[in-house]
C-alpha cells in the first residue's frame, strides 16, 4: 500500500477565482474542480496533481460556465456535468477536442442550478436541482428534460441517489425538508419530512447502511435512518453552517464535513461522538468548498477551497482533537457535592520500581493496547458528598424552611465577631449559618477556621512552586485534604462494591488517585498517593464553580527518574502518618492535617488568594453578609487577603445599608464600631440627627432651636395639642395627622381617648 504512506500534498490551482465543487472520477485517478471561472481536470499522482485538461481555456465570460457543482459520470470516465449559476446544465466529453468538448447544454432552469448528479447505473440519466424549486431529469440522448418535479417553492440544494435502492433519490431543500422520490414514479414523492429548522445545504447516503446524512444552516449534521419512515439516528453539532458532508468509505460511523463559513477545516466525525471531531484537516486558509474521498480508500481525502488550492490529505496527518482534549471533568453540584468523572486509562506498560513496598501498589498490569476506537475507553464517575460533620452540609437540615432574608437577619443577629480565638468565632458562626440553612456561608466559615484558625499557617508566606515534582507533591496534598472530608454519596457499601468491580476488572489496584483513596478508606488500608493523575491544578478556578482538572500527563508521571519516585514515596509516607494521626484522634480538629511544616515542601497554592476569591464570589452572588462578617472576624489576619480596600469598604457600606433596611440598628452599629475605615466610622457621627419640617410652610427647620420656624417665624407647628405650649423637649406626634405634643401629655390623653385632640384623627389605629 504505497498510498498509505503518501503524505499531504497541495496544489495552487489558479490565481483568480476559486473552486466551488470537486468531483472524483470513477476510477479515482482524476478529479474535476469547478468554480466561477474555472473548470479543470487533474490527475492525482503520488506526490501531487497534474493538470490533465482545462475546459475553460478561453477568456470567455459566459455565465453558463460559472459552475456551482460538478459531477463525474459514474459509468463513463469521459463524461462530466456541471451546474451553472444561471441555471444551465452542461455536459462535457473529455474524449473530444476543443469546442466539441461541450457535448450538451440544457438551459431550462430559471434560477441558479445548485446541484447535478448522475444516475448510478444508467449513464444517460442525470438530475439537477435548482433555486427555482424544481428538479429536472435529463437524458443525454435528448435535448430537453425528460420530466420536471416541482418539489417545493424553495430552492433545491442537493440531490443524491440512494446506493441501496436503485432509482430512488433524496433531495434536500432550503426550507429544511428532505424529499425522497423514485424516478419511475416521480409524480408523487415517496417520503417527505422536515429535517432541520434551517436550510439544508447538503446530503449524502451512507454507502452500506440505509442512512442519509444531512447538513444544515442550523449547524448540525443529522443522520437519518431511512428504513420505512425516516427516524433520527444521530445528531452532530458543528460550529458553523455545514457546506458538504461525505461518508468515509469502509468506516461505518465516520463522516467528513466542511463548513460554509467561519471554519476552514475539514472535520471527520465519528457519529457516535457528536461533540468533537474524530480528526481534522486544518491546512486550508479559507473556506473549504468541496471534499471527496479517493474512491474506496479511507486514508486519502481530497479537498478544494476558496484559497484556490486543492489538497490531498493523508489521514495519518490529520490532527486528532480528541487526543488533546481533557478526559477528566469535575464539577460542584449546587449542594456542594462534587462530581468527578474520568477515563479509565488504558495504561501504557510501566517500569516497575524496585526495592520498596510501594512497588506492589504501583505495579500495573499491562492492559489492552490502545486502539483508535475511542468509545471503547471506559470511564468512571464518582459523586462525592461533603461529610456533613466537617462542613455546613447536612442532609437533614431543614433547608428551605427559612427564607433568604430570614437567614440573613438571623445570622446578622447571632454572628459573633470577637471571641478567645478566631477558630471559636468561626466555629460558632459556622453553626449559626448552618442553623439558618446557609451552607455556603457555613462552609466558608469552616474554611476560614481551617486556614486562619491556627497560627502556624497564617504566619507562613506562600512559596512559589520550584519544580515539577514539587508541584506534584502539592497537588497530592491538596487532593488529599478535601477528600478526607468527602464521602461517597450513596453509601459505603455501594462504594466498596464499585471499587471492587474495578478491582476485579483490572486484576490489580489500578485506579486513579481518587478511587484509590476511597478504596483504602473503606478497607482501612493506609493511603498511598503515588499517582498524580487528575490533580486539581488550579484552585483559582474554584471561583467559577468548577474545578479545573489538568490534562493527563501519564508519560511524564510514569517516566520519572528513580530519585523522584523515591522522593515521592517519602512524601506519600508523610501523608500516611498524618492520615493515621488524624484517624486516631478522630476529632473535628482538621487543623492538624494542615500542619504542613513537617513536610519539606510547602504548599504552592495560595490559600489567601483562594479565600479572597471565595469571598468575592460570595459577594458577587448577592451575599455581602458572609464576606464582610468573615473579614471583620478575621481581625489582623485580614491583611493576608489580597482584597483591595475599596472593595471591603464597599462591602461595609452595603452590609450596613442592608442591616438598616431590616431595622437591625444594633447590628449595624456594631459593624460600624468594628470597622477600620474612616468613612464607615463616621457613619455613627453623621446622620444621627432627625430633621424636622415646619408644619405650615414645609421648610426644614434650621437653626439651633427646633420649635421655631425661621421662615414663617411661628412656633405653631411645635405647640402641644393638649396644653398649647411650645414643646421644648421630646415631641411626639402622630404620623397620620401630624399633631402631637409633650410626651407626658399625649400619653395621658391617649389613655382615655383614641382620637386626636385637634382633628379627631384615629391616631391609635
Amino acid at each position, binding site marked *: 500500500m504505497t498510498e498509505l504512506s503518501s503524505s499531504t500534498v497541495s496544489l495552487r490551482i489558479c490565481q*483568480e*477565482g476559486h473552486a466551488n465543487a470537486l468531483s472524483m472520477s470513477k476510477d479515482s485517478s482524476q478529479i474535476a474542480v469547478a468554480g*466561477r*471561472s474555472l473548470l479543470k481536470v487533474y490527475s492525482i499522482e503520488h506526490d501531487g496533481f497534474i493538470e490533465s485538461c482545462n475546459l475553460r481555456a478561453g477568456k470567455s*465570460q459566459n*455565465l453558463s460556465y*460559472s459552475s*456551482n457543482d460538478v459531477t463525474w459520470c459514474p459509468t463513463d470516465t469521459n463524461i462530466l456535468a456541471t451546474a451553472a*449559476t*444561471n*441555471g444551465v446544465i452542461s455536459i462535457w466529453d473529455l474524449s473530444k477536442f476543443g469546442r466539441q468538448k461541450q457535448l450538451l447544454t440544457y438551459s431550462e432552469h*430559471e*434560477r*441558479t442550478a*445548485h446541484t447535478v448528479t448522475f444516475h448510478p447505473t444508467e449513464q444517460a440519466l442525470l438530475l439537477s436541482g435548482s*433555486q*427555482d*424549486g424544481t428538479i429536472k431529469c435529463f437524458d443525454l440522448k435528448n435535448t430537453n428534460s425528460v420530466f420536471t418535479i*416541482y418539489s*417545493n*417553492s*424553495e430552492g433545491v*440544494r442537493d440531490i443524491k441517489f440512494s446506493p441501496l435502492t436503485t432509482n430512488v433519490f433524496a433531495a434536500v431543500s432550503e*426550507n*429544511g*425538508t428532505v424529499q425522497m422520490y423514485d424516478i419511475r414514479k416521480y409524480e*408523487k414523492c415517496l417520503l*417527505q*419530512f*422536515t429535517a*432541520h*429548522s434551517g*436550510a439544508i*445545504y447538503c446530503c449524502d447516503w451512507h454507502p452500506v447502511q440505509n442512512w442519509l446524512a444531512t447538513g444544515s*444552516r*442550523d449547524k448540525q449534521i443529522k443522520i437519518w435512518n431511512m428504513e420505512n419512515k425516516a427516524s433520527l439516528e444521530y445528531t452532530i453539532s458543528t460550529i458553523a*453552517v455545514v457546506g458538504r458532508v461525505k461518508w468515509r468509505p469502509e468506516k461505518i460511523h465516520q463522516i467528513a464535513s466542511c463548513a*460554509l*463559513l467561519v471554519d476552514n477545516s475539514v472535520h471527520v466525525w465519528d457519529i457516535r461522538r457528536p461533540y468533537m471531531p474524530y480528526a481534522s484537516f486544518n491546512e486550508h486558509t479559507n473556506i473549504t468548498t468541496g471534499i471527496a474521498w479517493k474512491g474506496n480508500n479511507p486514508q486519502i481525502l481530497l479537498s478544494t477551497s476558496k484559497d484556490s488550492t486543492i489538497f490531498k490529505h493523508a489521514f495519518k496527518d490529520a490532527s486528532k482533537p480528541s487526543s488533546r482534549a481533557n478526559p477528566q471533568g469535575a464539577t460542584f453540584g449546587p449542594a456542594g457535592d462534587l462530581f468527578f468523572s474520568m477515563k479509565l486509562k488504558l495504561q501504557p506498560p510501566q517500569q516497575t520500581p524496585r526495592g520498596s513496598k510501594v512497588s506492589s501498589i504501583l505495579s500495573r498490569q499491562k492492559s489492552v493496547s490502545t486502539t483508535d476506537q475511542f468509545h471503547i475507553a471506559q470511564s468512571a464517575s464518582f459523586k462525592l458528598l461533603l461529610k456533613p460533620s466537617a462542613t455546613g452540609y447536612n442532609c437533614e437540615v431543614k433547608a428551605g424552611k427559612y427564607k433568604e432574608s430570614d437567614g440573613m437577619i438571623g445570622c446578622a443577629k447571632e454572628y459573633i465577631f470577637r471571641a478567645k480565638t478566631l477558630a471559636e468565632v468561626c466555629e460558632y458562626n459556622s453553626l449559626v449559618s448552618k442553623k439558618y440553612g446557609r451552607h455556603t456561608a457555613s462552609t466558608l466559615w469552616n474554611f476560614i477556621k481551617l486556614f486562619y484558625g491556627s497560627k502556624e499557617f497564617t504566619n507562613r508566606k506562600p512559596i512559589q512552586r520550584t519544580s515539577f515534582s514539587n508541584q506534584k507533591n502539592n497537588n497530592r496534598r491538596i487532593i488529599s485534604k478535601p477528600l478526607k472530608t468527602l464521602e461517597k454519596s450513596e453509601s459505603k457499601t455501594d462504594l466498596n462494591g464499585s471499587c471492587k468491580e474495578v478491582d476485579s476488572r483490572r486484576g490489580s489496584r489500578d485506579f486513579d488517585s481518587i478511587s484509590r483513596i476511597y478504596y483504602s478508606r473503606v478497607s482501612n488500608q493506609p493511603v498511598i498517593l503515588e499517582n498524580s493523575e487528575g490533580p486539581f491544578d488550579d484552585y483559582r478556578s474554584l471561583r467559577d464553580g468548577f474545578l479545573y482538572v489538568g490534562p493527563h500527563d501519564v508519560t511524564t508521571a510514569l517516566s520519572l527518574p528513580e530519585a523522584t519516585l523515591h522522593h515521592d514515596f517519602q512524601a506519600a509516607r508523610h501523608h500516611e502518618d498524618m492520615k493515621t494521626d488524624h484517624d486516631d484522634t478522630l476529632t473535628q480538629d482538621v487543623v492538624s492535617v494542615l500542619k504542613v511544616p513537617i513536610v519539606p515542601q510547602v504548599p504552592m497554592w495560595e490559600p489567601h488568594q483562594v479565600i479572597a476569591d471565595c469571598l468575592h464570589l460570595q459577594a458577587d452572588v448577592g451575599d455581602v453578609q458572609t464576606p464582610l462578617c468573615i473579614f471583620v472576624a478575621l481581625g489582623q489576619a485580614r491583611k493576608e487577603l489580597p482584597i483591595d480596600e475599596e472593595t471591603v469598604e464597599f462591602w461595609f457600606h452595603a452590609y450596613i445599608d442592608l442591616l438598616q433596611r431590616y431595622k437591625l440598628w444594633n447590628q449595624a452599629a456594631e459593624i460600624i464600631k468594628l470597622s477600620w475605615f474612616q468613612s464607615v466610622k463616621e457613619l455613627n457621627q453623621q446622620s444621627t440627627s432627625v430633621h424636622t419640617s415646619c408644619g405650615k410652610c414645609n421648610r426644614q427647620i434650621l437653626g439651633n432651636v427646633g420649635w421655631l420656624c425661621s421662615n414663617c417665624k411661628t412656633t405653631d407647628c411645635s405647640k402641644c395639642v393638649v396644653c398649647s405650649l411650645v414643646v421644648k423637649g421630646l415631641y411626639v406626634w402622630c404620623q397620620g395627622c401630624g399633631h402631637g405634643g409633650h410626651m407626658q401629655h399625649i400619653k395621658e390623653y391617649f389613655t382615655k381617648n383614641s382620637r386626636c385632640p385637634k382633628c379627631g384623627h384615629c391616631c391609635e389605629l
Partner: protein
Amino acid sequence: MSYQDDDEEQMGPHSESFPKDFGYGHSPREANLESKPRILLMGLRRSGKSSIQKVVFHKMSPNETLFLPSTCEIVKDDINNSSFVQFQIWDFPGQIDFIDPTFDSDMIFGGCGALIFVIDAKDDYNEALTKFKNTVTKAYKVNPRIKFEVFIHKVDGISDDSKMESQRDIHQRATDDLSDAGLHQIRLSFHLTSIYDHSIFEAFSKVVQKLIPQLPTLENLLNIFISNSGIEKAFLFDVVSKIYIATDCSPVDMQSYELCCDMIDVAIDLSSIYSTEEEAFDNKTSSLIKLNNSTVLYLREVNKFLALVCILREENFNKQGVIDYNFLCFRDAIGQVFELKIRATKHMDEDIEVSLMESPNDSVVF
C-alpha cells in the same frame, strides 16, 4: 472596526441619474392599483399579524408591538409609494368569518399573490391548523396560483429543539390535512419567524421575491457582478423595509444578512445627521465599513429605494475602481430591467423575458 462614511461621494463620470419613474407612486401606476400583487396576512387573533406588518414595513420597534390594538377590520397597506417592490399588504382580523356574506372571497383571493398564514408557535396550534385548512381550501378554489406561506411565529420564545419539533409537526399535519381534502398539489412553504431578530425580514424577503417576476434576471445580474468583482456576497436591498429582493446564488447566512441590514441603518442614520440634502438616501449615497476580520462591507445606492450591499475581502477591495465600474454596469442593467417592466405594464402583451437577457450589458475590466 474602522468606519468610513463616504456619503455623498462623487460618482465620477457616471453621474446621470436614473429615470425617476421606476414605479414609485407614479401617476400612471395608480390606475392599475388593483392589478398589483397582494399579500394577505391571515391567522388566528393575537398571532402577530399586525406586529409583523408594523415591524417590517413601518420600522416599529418590536417592543412597541405589545401595545398594538387588535385589528378588527381588513387593513390595506399599500407598499407602493415607500418602497421599490410594489404590492399591497392586507392585514386581516383574526376572527374573520368566511361564511359571512359580506366576505367577498373572489375579490379578496382573486388578485392575491401570496397568502401568509401566521401560526403562533407558543400557542396550541390545533385551532390554527383547522383555520389554515379552511382558508387554503377556500383560497385555492378561487385562485390556484396563490403562493401559500406559513409563518411559524414567535419562535424566539421556544427552545431550538421544540422549534424543530413544532415545525415538523405543523408541516406534517398541514400537509396531511390538505391531502385529506384532496389538495396535495398545493405547495406550502414554512418559515420560522420572530420579530425580535432578522428572521421575519428574511422570511418576508422570500415571500416578496416570489412575487417579483424579474427575480431570475436580477439574480443573474448579481452573479455576474460578484464573480467579476471578487465579491463574496451581495444583497439587493429594499432600503425602507430592509428586505432583500434578490441575492446571488451562494447560500444566505443569517449573520451577514444582519450585518448588511445594520449597515443600511448606520448609513441612513449618519447621512440624516450630516447630510445637507433633505433626503437621507439619494442616488449618490455610498458607504464603506471595514471590519476587523479583514472583511469590507460596501454599500452603493442603486436607485432611490434600492441599495446594493456587498461583503468582500479586504484584499479584493484594492481594485475598487473595477468594482465601481462593474457596479455602474450593474446599475445600468437593473435600470434596463425595470424600464422593460414599465414598458411591459404599458403594453401588457409585450413579452418581458425574451428581451431581458440581451439587455444587461456586462462589460468587465480586469
